C-alpha cells in the first residue's frame, strides 16, 4: 500500500448532516465520542446495578439460595469489575471527552482518531469481560484477583482468563485516553488560557491522567505476569516455585490506590464546576484547590500498603503507611472546606445538579472519615475485609464519585444535547437516591462491626446481623427506583426536553459561551482568555472581582486586543462567536432557554474554513484487531495452532489498519 493512496478510506466531512449508524462508527468528534462513552458507561452502570441487586437479594435473609455459591462469586467479582472499569471510569471519560476541549478552548482533542480508538477498545473490552456471565464462566476471583487463588493451579477454569485478558484490553483504552488528554491540556489551550486559569474540572482531569499514566503500567505488568503464568507456564506467582504471593498484592495496590483517586477526582472536578455556578461565586481558593488536587495525586502513590495491613508486614511498615494515609486527610479536608466556603454567602440555587454536588461534599465526608479510621492498623484489622469497608468505599464511590458524576450529568446534559433535563424528575430522583444510598450503605457499618466478612454468599441467622442486611436490601430497592428515575429523565429529555440555549445556568467557563449542542468545530473563532471565568467577565463582571486578571502574560503572547476596564480590573476582549453573540444577552438569568440562538442554522466548518478531522472507521477496525489478537490466548489451551493462528491474524489485522490509519491524512487540505 503506497503512502500516496489517492482514495483514502474515509468519507468527506459532512458530519453536521451525518447521523446514521455509520457516522457513529466512524466519528472522531470528541463530543460524539463523549456521548458514546456516556451511554455505554450508563449501560454498564445498570449492568453492575443488576449484579448488585442479585447480591442484595441473596443476602436479604440468612441461608438464601437465590443464586449458587459459584454464581454469587462470579456476580460479586463482576459487580466490582464492572463498576470500577466499565461504569465509573468511562463515565468520567465521557466528561473528559465532552468537556476538556470545550473548557480549554480547543476544536478537538489532540489525537481525535486515537480518542475513537480508546472508546472502541473500551466497548469491545467491556463486552469481552461481561459476556461470559451468560455462560456461567464469568471471572470469580474478586475484582482484586489475588494470587495464588487466580493462578491456574487454583482456578483452572476459563473464568479468570476472561478477567486477566479483559483488564489488559481495557487498560489500553485508559492509557491511550491518558496520552490524549495530557497532550490536549498541555498543548491545545486557547490563547491566554494559562495553567492557573484552567477550570477546576480540567485540572482534576489533568491530575487523573497522570495517575493513569503512572499507575496503569504497574497493573499492566502485574496482569502480564499472570497471563504468562496462566498461559505459558511461568512462575511469577507460583508459591511452590518460590514466588511470594505478596508480589501481586503490592503491584495491584500500587495501581489500586491511585485508582481510587482516578475514580473520585473527576467527580471532584465536576462539583467544582457545579458549586461555583449555582453559588454565583468563583471557586474559593482556586490555587489551593489546584495544589490540593496535585498533592492528593502525589500522596496517592505512597499509601498502597494500607490495603495490606493484614498480610503481616510488621509494625514498622504498618506505622509508615498509617502516617502517609493520614496525611491525605489534609488536602481532602482543604477541598471540603473550600467547597463550603464557595457556597458561604453565595446566591445558592438548588438545582438537581447542585443537590448532587452538595450531597457529594456530605457523603464524601462520611466516607472520608471512616477512611481515616482505617488508617489505624489495629482498628483496620478488625474492619478490613468486612462490610464496614464495604460501607466506607460505597460512601466514597457512590456518595462521592457517582453523586458527582450525576451532578455532572444534570449540569452538562444541556450542553451536549441542547435540551434541559426535567428538574422535577431530577429532584425526585435525587432525594430517592439519597435516601436509598444511605439506607443501603449505612447499615453495612454495623454488619461489619458485628463480624460479617465480605464476599460471603450466605450467613447463618444466629450471626446477629440479619436486620442490617435486610435494611441494606431495602435500601437497594429504593436506590434502584431513584436511578431509574434519572435514566428515564435522560431518555425523555434527550427526545423532548426544553431547549437549553448556550448558557442555561449562567455559568462562567468557556464551554457555556458556544451553542448547545456545540458545532463540530466548537469555537468558530478561538477565544482569547483573560481570566478563570471568561464568560462571567462579559456577562456578570461583578462576580469575578476577586479573580486575578493578570495581563503580563497576555501581552507577551500578543493577544488580548483592545482592553476594556471594568470594575477596576482590566478585561480583555472575549471572543464573540459569530453565531452565538446574541446569547450573551440576558445575563444573570439562572435559566434562559435561548431557543432562537440554537434553532438558527450554524455555519459548517467548511464554510468557516476550519479544517476538521475526517471520520474514519480505522480506529474501530484497529480496536477489533487488538481484541481478536487477545482472544487467541483463550484458544491456546484447546489447540496451540488455533490460538497462535488467531493471535497472528489479530496482530496482522490491527497492524494493517493502524498502517492505513497513519498513512491517511487527518483532515482534508483546504
Amino acid at each position, binding site marked *: 500500500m503506497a503512502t500516496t493512496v489517492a482514495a483514502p478510506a474515509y468519507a468527506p466531512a459532512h458530519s453536521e448532516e451525518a447521523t446514521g449508524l455509520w457516522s457513529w462508527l466512524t466519528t472522531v468528534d470528541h463530543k460524539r465520542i463523549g456521548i458514546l462513552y456516556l451511554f455505554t458507561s450508563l449501560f454498564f452502570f445498570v449492568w453492575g446495578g443488576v449484579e448488585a441487586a442479585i447480591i442484595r437479594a441473596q443476602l436479604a435473609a440468612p441461608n438464601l439460595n437465590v443464586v449458587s455459591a459459584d454464581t454469587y462469586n462470579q456476580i460479586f467479582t463482576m459487580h466490582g469489575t464492572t463498576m470500577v472499569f466499565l461504569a465509573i471510569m468511562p463515565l468520567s471519560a465521557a466528561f473528559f471527552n465532552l468537556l476538556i476541549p470545550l473548557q480549554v478552548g480547543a476544536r478537538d482533542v489532540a489525537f481525535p482518531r486515537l480518542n475513537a480508538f480508546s472508546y472502541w477498545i473500551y466497548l469491545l473490552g467491556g463486552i469481552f469481560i461481561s459476556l461470559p456471565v451468560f455462560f456461567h464462566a464469568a471471572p470469580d476471583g474478586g475484582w482484586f484477583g489475588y494470587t495464588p487463588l487466580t493462578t491456574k493451579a487454583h482456578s483452572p477454569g476459563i473464568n479468570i482468563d476472561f478477567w486477566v485478558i479483559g483488564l489488559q484490553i481495557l487498560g489500553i483504552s485508559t492509557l491511550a485516553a491518558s496520552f490524549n488528554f495530557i497532550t490536549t491540556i498541555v498543548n491545545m489551550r486557547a490563547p491566554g488560557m494559562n495553567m492557573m486559569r484552567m477550570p477546576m474540572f480540567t485540572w482534576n482531569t489533568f491530575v487523573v491522567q497522570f495517575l493513569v499514566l503512572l499507575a496503569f503500567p504497574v497493573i499492566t505488568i502485574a496482569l502480564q505476569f499472570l497471563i504468562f503464568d496462566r498461559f505459558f507456564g511461568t512462575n511469577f506467582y507460583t508459591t511452590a516455585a518460590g514466588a511470594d504471593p505478596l508480589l501481586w498484592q503490592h503491584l495491584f495496590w500500587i495501581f489500586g490506590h491511585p485508582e481510587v483517586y482516578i475514580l473520585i477526582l473527576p467527580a471532584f472536578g465536576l462539583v467544582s464546576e457545579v458549586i461555583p455556578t449555582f453559588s454565583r461565586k468563583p471557586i474559593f481558593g482556586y490555587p489551593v484547590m489546584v495544589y490540593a488536587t496535585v498533592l492528593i495525586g502525589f500522596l496517592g502513590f505512597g499509601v498502597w500498603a494500607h490495603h495490606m495491613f493484614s498480610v503481616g508486614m510488621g509494625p514498622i511498615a504498618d506505622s509508615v503507611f498509617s502516617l502517609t494515609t493520614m496525611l491525605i486527610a*489534609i488536602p481532602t479536608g482543604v477541598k471540603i472546606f473550600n467547597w463550603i466556603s464557595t457556597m*458561604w454567602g453565595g446566591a445558592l440555587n438548588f438545582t438537581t445538579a447542585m443537590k448532587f454536588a452538595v450531597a457529594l461534599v456530605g457523603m464524601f465526608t462520611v466516607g472520608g472519615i471512616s477512611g481515616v479510621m482505617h488508617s489505624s492498623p489495629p482498628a483496620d484489622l478488625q474492619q478490613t475485609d468486612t462490610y464496614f469497608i464495604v460501607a466506607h468505599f460505597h460512601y466514597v464511590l457512590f456518595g462521592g464519585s457517582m453523586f458527582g458524576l450525576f451532578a455532572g450529568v444534570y449540569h452538562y446534559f444541556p450542553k451536549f444535547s441542547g435540551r434541559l433535563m426535567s428538574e422535577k424528575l431530577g429532584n425526585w430522583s435525587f432525594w430517592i437516591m439519597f435516601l436509598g444510598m444511605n439506607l443501603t450503605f449505612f447499615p453495612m457499618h454495623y454488619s461489619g462491626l458485628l463480624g460479617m466478612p465480605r464476599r460471603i454468599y450466605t450467613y447463618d441467622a444466629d450471626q446477629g446481623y440479619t436486620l442490617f442486611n435486610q435494611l441494606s436490601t431495602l435500601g437497594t430497592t429504593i436506590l434502584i427506583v431513584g436511578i431509574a428515575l434519572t435514566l428515564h429523565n435522560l431518555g425523555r429529555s434527550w427526545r423532548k426536553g426544553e431547549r437549553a440555549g448556550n448558557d442555561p445556568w449562567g455559568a462562567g467557563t468557556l464551554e457555556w459561551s458556544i451553542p448547545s449542542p456545540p458545532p463540530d468545530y466548537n469555537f468558530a473563532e478561538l477565544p482569547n482568555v483573560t481570566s478563570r471565568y471568561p464568560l462571567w467577565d462579559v456577562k456578570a463582571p461583578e462576580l469575578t472581582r476577586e479573580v486575578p486578571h493578570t495581563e503580563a502574560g497576555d501581552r507577551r503572547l500578543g493577544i488580548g486586543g483592545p482592553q476594556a476596564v471594568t470594575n477596576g480590573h482590566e478585561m480583555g476582549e472575549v471572543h464573540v462567536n459569530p453565531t452565538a453573540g446574541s446569547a450573551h444577552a440576558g445575563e444573570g438569568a439562572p435559566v434562559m432557554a435561548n431557543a432562537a440562538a440554537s434553532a438558527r442554522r450554524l455555519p459548517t466548518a467548511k464554510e468557516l474554513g476550519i479544517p476538521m478531522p475526517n471520520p474514519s472507521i480505522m480506529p474501530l477496525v484497529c480496536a477489533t484487531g487488538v481484541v481478536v489478537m487477545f482472544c487467541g490466548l483463550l484458544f491456546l489451551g484447546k489447540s496451540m495452532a488455533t490460538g497462535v493462528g488467531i493471535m497472528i491474524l489479530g496482530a496482522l489485522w490491527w497492524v494493517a489498519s493502524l498502517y492505513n490509519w497513519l498513512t491517511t491524512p487527518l483532515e482534508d487540505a483546504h
Partner: protein
Amino acid sequence: MSALPLAALRQAVAPQSALRAGGPEAEQIGLLWNVLLVVGTAVTVGVLAFLAYALFRRRGDADETQGDRRMRAGVRWMVAGGVVLPIVVLMPILVLTMRTLGAVTLPSRTVASADEPPAPGEFVVEVTGRQYWWEVRYRARRPDLEFETANELRVPVGRRVVVRLRSRDVIHSFWVPGLQGKMDLVPGRTNALVFTAARPGRWRGQCAEFCGAQHAKMAFTVVAEPAAEWQAWAARQRADARPPADPATRAAQGAFLNSGCVLCHAVRGTPARGDAGPDLTHLASRLTLAAGTLPNTRGHLTGWVADPQSIKPGSLMPSVPLEPRTLHAIVRYLETLD
C-alpha cells in the same frame, strides 16, 4: 447515627462481633476503636453541620459588600478545618495507634523463628489454612506432646496464645473479632498473632480473605476453658483413637477403613493416614462439622458424609455414593471418635 440501630446493636447477640472484647488485646483495640468512633463521629457531625449552616444561613448584606473580609474568613476556615483540624486530631490518634500496635502485635523476631518449637513457657498453636477448613496443630517443646485437630482452638483461660499462621493453598485470613484483629495466612510465609481469652467462653472466627467457592463456610470456634479442663482435653486429644470396644463398632470401623474416606482423612491409631482433609481422630469431641458449617449431631454428620456437595458446594470433599448400610456404619464409627 440514629438511636435505633444503636439500640438494636446493644441487643444483638452476635457471636462474631468485634464490639465485645474477650481479652486484653481485643480490649486495647476496642479502646482505640472507641476513640476513633467518638472523634470520627464528632468531626463528621461538625463538618456536616457546618455544611448545613453554609447552605441555609440567611444571606446578609455583608455577603454583598465585604468581599475581602469574607475571603479572609474563608482562608481561616480552610486552614483551620483543612489543615489544623486534621493535624490536631490525627497526631494523638497516630500516637495511640502506634502504642496499640506495639501492644497487640508480636515483634518480628517471634515471627522469624516460626519453625522452631515454642520458647519455654510459650503457648503456640499452628493454624494452617486449607480450602475450606483450618488445620490446627498444638506445638510443644517435646514432640510427643504435640497433637493435631481441626476447626477448633481450645485454649486455657488467661494464657497468652501465639498463633502461627500458614497456608497450604491460597491466602486465607484468621479472624476472631472478639479476641484479635485479623491476620492473613499466606502460602510460603508464616505470620503470627497473639491473643488472650480473659474468661471462659466461645468465640466464633471466620476466614476473612476470599479464598474460593466456599469462602463463606470456613469458620471455626475458639473455646476458652479453665487450665485444668484444658489439660484434660489436651491429654485426650494427644491419645490415639479409641479402639473399637465391641464387634458392631469393629465392623463399623472396617466399613470406614474400607471406604474412600481414608484417602483424605487420618485417624491416629488406625491405618487411615490421609492428609488432604481434617484429622478425624477425635471428631466426635468437636463442636461443629465442615468448618463451623453444621452443629456436630448425628443427623448433620450423616447428611455431611452422604452428600457434602449439597451442603458446601465446591468444597474439596466429594459426594461419594454410599450404600445406606455403609453410610450408617461409617457414621456410627465416627461417633465413637471422642
